[in-house]
């Protein structure tokens, strides 16, 4: 383990299981290229006390009862189920979002549900991340994705915005950078020629509701594994499993 020379979480060796980690003694100051890795412990003064870089898990959605339970708000639902599963209370309002602070295992976690409307989510996520000093690679965004079939989850280390206004706004507020991990939850394409906006603000049908409920649980598991182990082979297998989960006999 390197002794961090600077106070901020700058020097992390990517030590996840499947990445070969060659530690050169001469190149001790090389910053790890693979910035998407697990939350690595930093040693403080070489002592055994280890503090992990926190993760910020943000679910995108629209506030208000009118939009509660609509397709665009799946992000909120995931955050709710994580908070229930981990026992993290969402009891603070900061930077226009409802947040809850807690931890999964040893890793500190901040759950956030921005209460700005979807197109302005970045205004709350950006300052929140800055305040809690969460690095870009530890901001997990949870949102709905029309490209995936209903109930299929996908964990990605980075990507584009896919015309999702909430994502676009968040990316804009994070200095235009798309390099943060995301959990996309599939909601399927709008049927026929239906207006996209109307589709997104519709509530789920009963069949879809069951599928989404099942996938919420799987999503919680996925987030736990991601936070504890980073992007590894397990995440790849999770994505594969999700992709073919409805193709079973």
């Amino acid at each position, binding site marked *: 383990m390197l002794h961090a020379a600077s106070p901020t979480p700058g020097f992390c060796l990517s030590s996840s299981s499947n990445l070969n980690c060659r530690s050169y003694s001469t190149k001790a100051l090389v910053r790890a290229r693979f910035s998407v890795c697990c939350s690595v412990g930093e040693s403080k003064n070489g002592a*055994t*006390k*280890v*503090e*992990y870089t*926190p993760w910020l898990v943000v679910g995108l959605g629209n*506030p*208000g*009862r009118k*939009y*509660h339970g609509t397709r665009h708000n799946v992000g909120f639902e995931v955050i709710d189920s994580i908070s229930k*599963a*981990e*026992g993290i*209370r*969402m*009891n*603070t*309002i*900061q*930077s*226009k*979002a*409802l*947040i809850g*602070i*807690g*931890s*999964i*295992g*040893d890793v*500190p*976690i*901040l759950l956030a549900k921005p*209460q700005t409307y979807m197109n302005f989510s970045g205004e709350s996520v950006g300052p929140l991340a800055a*305040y*809690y*000093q969460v690095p870009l690679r530890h901001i997990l965004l949870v949102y709905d994705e029309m490209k995936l079939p209903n109930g299929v989850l996908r964990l990605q280390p980075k990507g584009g915005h896919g015309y999702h206004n909430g994502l676009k706004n968040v990316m804009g507020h994070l200095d235009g950078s798309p390099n943060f991990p995301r959990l996309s939850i599939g909601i399927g394409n709008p049927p026929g020629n239906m207006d996209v906006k109307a589709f997104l603000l519709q509530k789920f049908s009963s069949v879809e509701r069951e599928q989404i409920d099942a996938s919420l*649980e*799987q999503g*919680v*598991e*996925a987030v*736990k*594994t991601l936070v*504890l182990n980073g992007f590894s*082979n*397990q995440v790849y*297998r*999770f994505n*594969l*499993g999700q*992709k*073919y*989960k*409805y*193709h*079973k*006999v």
Partner: protein
Amino acid sequence: MVLIPSMVIVALSASPLSGRNLFSSLPSTPPSPPTPPHPSSTPQPPIPIPKYPPPRKSLQNPPNNHPALKHHHRSSYHKPVNRPGVIASDGDRSVIVGDSGVSYLLPGAPFEFQFSYSETPKEKPIAIREPAFLPFAPPTMPRPWTGKAPLKSKKDKEKKVRLLESLNPPRPGSNGVKQLQMAKPLELGKYSRDGKSREEILGEPLRKWEIRMLVKPMVSDNRQVNLGRDGLTHNMLELIHSHWKRSPVCKIRCKGVPTVDMKNVCHHIEDKTGGKIILRVGGVVYLFRGRNYNYSTRPQYPVMLWKPAAPVYPKLIQAAPGGLTKDEADELRLKGKSLLPICKLAKNGVYTTLVKDVREAFEGSPLAKIDCKGLEPSDYKKIGAKLKDLVPCVLLSFDDEQILMWRGNDWKPMFPQSPPFSHPSEAGITEDSVSTGETDDDNESEQEGNMVNTSPKMLSLWKHAIESSKALLLDDFNLGPDALLEKVEEFEGVSQVMEHSYPALILSNENGAKGSMASFEDGTEDSCSSQDGLTTEDEGDDDDDSYNDFLEDDMFDVVESYAEPSSLPIDFVVNKLKQKREE
């Protein structure tokens, strides 16, 4: 009143029987409906309505007798191939059925010629569909003309075969028939390459910048060799050389069935043409001719004049495949009917990822189905045959234009362990695991009855936020979404005040005025507001003088911790401007 003609007919025919008077006036006999329906009673329409549109007549009647117009498609010629080896020979040319299907051996040729080099299945054919003639020259049997236009150029005329009167004695059965023979045996192709080997022609391997330079102009260009469902055909070799005459790189675009196994296609391309592939993107292959290529010394293969019939191969779908009994196989087929297809193939698309996708699908389920609606039956059967070999799997059925596959009994999963997190209740991570000081990492804090379990740094940040009014701790949970939204907006107003307020400005000439703005803090900067006599220069403000004057004027009241409407910095600016205007 509308009388349906049928009623009239019925009435007419029924009148002698029923005794009803046709011309009875209306009141006496109310119009009765026709006789109560019996099974075949829908009244006969006057003109029979055809159930289906009339069959379209074909454009012309095919003249079906002339032998010149016979072809092997849908002919009933079927000659089984009992053992591999030569099945027909004509002097030193022969047709062989061997490991690589039906192939043709010509004297002097460097390799066996086949119709398609990349698409010949590994299975051995069991019969042939047409008489085994070599497709390189017109045989003596009447066939449809598939040759070239009449010879016009001198070069073409040189290829003409000179016939001389034969000096051999006439054959016994032929009376009065003139015997002719060729002056010299017909040379079908020139294969010598000036003795250069493949490596010599290729020369040194290309550097990256050279590759980029060569490929860049071709990327948006349409000049390419199209490789379709027949794969790398024999005539394509000549075509590639003609492309190489004009440009050092030949672009080959592969679409459809062969793209399932691009590795094989690329191997055959490099092997048979002698070029080198410098770039491969999806279905497009860029083939370099070699630094020392000379068009005139290229190997000139004889061109195939027609497409020989594909031989008969053993059936792909068996009733009881792969060690299953027929019943088990039928059961699997039944299950497969309700399966979702993993992907839909486009008619002439690029299927490079198909094998990988099928392998991954087999991880989750023993059956996999591919939707091939819109493809030709021969195409999806070819795709099925390839998948059978590449993903090792067992083909179960092709009905409904879908390929149904089973992974087989000896399927090994790609990942050795069981899937990572399939159950929602995993041990090891329990909620509310309050570590009572065992680990050094976590920190417990009890705040108004809540147990918050997190790292000390985060906790301190959180508490600081709450204390400095950047965050609001809610007492009641289960706030409805609307109520929550209201609270957030309300709090937003408050916290914005905190953020956008200025640090204290204390003037040396103002004794009495408390730095009542000292109670405001700018959260991000820790600029302390001191009460000493600092002549302030506002950070980044102009017009200090008039500004300071106004501080004097307004700072009479003791301002509370919340900003009053008139004491925000923006108000100072507004007042200043007003003053200026008044001046």
